[in-house]
């Protein structure tokens, strides 16, 4: 059964990763690159190469992209094909990971596993691991002022976990007391509050940020829903033939 889950997860991850990369290429990716042009147009760090203000338009990010990372010395993929290739790999890994988690949860729950139950679990996963955390930490373009990274990652992961537990209690438990407990667990991270950014300023225009939040949520919804759909479908086929 483990083999069937892993095989299904890899198959689904392949499809999801490719689909996600295509959608990102026309939705979030242009916005990220656009935002980076504003970031690179800002006063460059002392160590950076001579200013590029004259050419700081559409393609300036090619020259300045590494400067916006924490560690300017570290390797990063070159813009263009290499960068897209690494993004595709990361998307594939995300697709496999999400599919494996969804299939594992569906197996523990028991009952039918197919495309239609898979897509429901996927949408629930999106709700818990993307939509609810985004209430505290909305999707950010490069160049957004934000609190320290580790504190945000901890809040994000805890919120996703609490949301998943809360949602599961609300949906699956038979007792009203447990359902209410689920609601409390789900709301708790937002009462505690996400790490607050030092300022609300951003290097890019506000409209760009708004567009990106919507685009990012759509991409996340696609990741989760498609992972559930494809992995459920594949699992049903593979376990039937096994």
């Amino acid at each position, binding site marked *: *059964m*483990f083999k069937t*889950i*892993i095989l299904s*997860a890899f198959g689904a991850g392949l499809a999801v990763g490719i689909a*996600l990369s295509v959608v*990102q290429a026309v939705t*979030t*990716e242009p916005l*990220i690159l656009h935002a980076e042009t504003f970031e690179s147009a800002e006063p460059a760090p002392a160590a950076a190469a001579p200013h590029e203000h004259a050419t700081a338009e559409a393609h300036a990010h090619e020259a300045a992209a590494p400067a*916006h*990372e*924490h*560690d300017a010395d*570290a*390797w*990063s*993929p070159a813009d263009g094909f290499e*960068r897209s290739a*690494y*993004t595709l*790999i*990361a*998307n594939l*890994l*995300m697709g*496999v*990971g*999400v599919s*494996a*988690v*969804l*299939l*594992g*949860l569906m*197996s*523990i729950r*028991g009952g039918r596993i197919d495309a239609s139950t898979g897509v429901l679990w996927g949408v629930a996963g999106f709700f818990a691991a*993307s939509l609810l*955390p*985004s209430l505290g*930490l*909305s*999707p*950010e373009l*490069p160049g957004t002022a*934000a609190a320290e*990274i*580790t504190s*945000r*990652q901890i809040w*994000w*992961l805890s919120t996703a976990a609490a949301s998943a537990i809360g949602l599961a209690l609300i949906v699956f438990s038979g007792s009203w007391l447990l359902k209410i407990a689920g609601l409390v667990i789900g709301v708790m991270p937002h009462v505690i509050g996400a790490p607050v950014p030092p300022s609300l300023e951003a290097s890019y225009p506000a409209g760009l940020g708004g567009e990106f*939040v919507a*685009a*990012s*949520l759509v*991409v*996340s919804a696609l*990741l989760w829903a498609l992972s559930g759909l494809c992995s459920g479908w594949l699992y049903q086929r593979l376990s039937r033939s096994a």
Partner: protein
Amino acid sequence: MTNFSKTATRPASIAADGARSDAASRIVPALLAIAFGLLLFVGTGFAAPSLIHNATHDTRHSLGLPCH
């Protein structure tokens, strides 16, 4: 004789093992799959080393995960 007594006790032990291994054969691989999936998800979306961060940068931003 010993053979006979073994076969005589087998049906009961099979039933017990069967029930136990049914739950185990469902839960254990499922938990392993979840652990594997979470490892990939957190490794891709949250790992701190600059190399991993830079390689997965656009995916992290696109999916609204905390980045930088």
